[in-house]
């Protein structure tokens, strides 16, 4: 599956990592909802390092859209909230 890290490009990640990514993503989402900065930071960093370490960079000339998109490294919780609501697309 293709995962994009904003600011870093696309990675091809083995499908068996889905469960791990989902779990971390759940932590991330809950942390954003609670405004829990330490959990948010830890979950985001784990997601980023998992994708970077276990994935391989997708070819630069690929035009394939990503299945999952990760916020950029160092994102604040506000920036993540904004990503989710950008362009009037709401939390659905």
């Amino acid at each position, binding site marked *: 599956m293709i995962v994009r890290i904003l600011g870093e*490009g696309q990675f091809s990640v083995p499908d068996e990592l889905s469960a791990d990514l989902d779990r971390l993503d759940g932590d991330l989402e809950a942390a954003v909802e609670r405004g829990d900065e330490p959990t948010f930071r830890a979950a985001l960093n784990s997601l980023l390092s998992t994708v970077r370490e276990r994935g391989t960079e997708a070819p630069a000339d*690929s035009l394939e859209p990503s299945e999952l998109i990760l916020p950029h490294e160092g994102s604040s919780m506000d920036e993540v909230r904004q990503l989710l609501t950008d*362009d009037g697309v709401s939390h659905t």
Partner: protein
Amino acid sequence: MGVMKRVSLVFKAKANKALDKMEDPRETLDYSYQRQLEMLTKVRRGVADVATSRKRVELQMNQLQQSSTKLEDQARKALGMGREDLAREALSRKASSQSQLNDLQVQYAQLQAEEEKLTVASQRLQAKVDAFRTRKETIKATYTAAEAQTRINEAFSGISEEMGDVGQAIQRAEDKTAQMQARAGAIDELLASGALDDALGGHRDDIQSELDAISAGSDVESELSRLRGEIASGQPKQLGAGANGGQAPGQAPTAQQQQSQTPQYGGQPAALPASDYPVDDVEGGAGA
């Protein structure tokens, strides 16, 4: 659903919205390609802007480094002249200069990282834009408008995601650059105000002026003492002889006279009114 999935849906929704506006999907290809070229120009400009900012920080770091070196030098001189107060002042300015410098080093590293990221992003976008152009020509040549739709959607959502990503990266770089420029402006003002050391601009700072005044003062003092010595001994001297430290090797008789006065010369200042110059205790000639 999870943050990652939701973000990807937001990006896809944006792409679809743009596609929906087009009557003939094949028009989308050319329109989008133009936008991509514009975005490429924008990223390259972004790289150049960050580089300019980085160079400005680099310049300031050099200035602050010079300032620190100079202030330490001044502190050493001031101590040598027995002016611990001045030395303290110079060292405290050096500390402030040094802390600005440390701050700038962090900013410099951040700008460098930003510049690298944008450079890589522009290469990535370039590769995708090239791929898109090829795909676009194939689609236009091979498919009717109706058939083209699916293929266009695929190519379009991929490139649109990249464009969205790069667009945000440029925005972040611009924000960071703007912040740094505000701070760089503040440091320029600080440097110009002389709060750290305004000798950098070629004019003298106050510590240097005081050190110079001390040296100049001590020159005046020793000249005064010499003249007093001469008057006391009733032997008016030529200025040239005095300037040579009281030695006139060309005039044998006067030179002898001068030598005989030397002890008196050394003792004389004590008998005279104390000078206003704070320098007596520092200067080696007159007081000692």
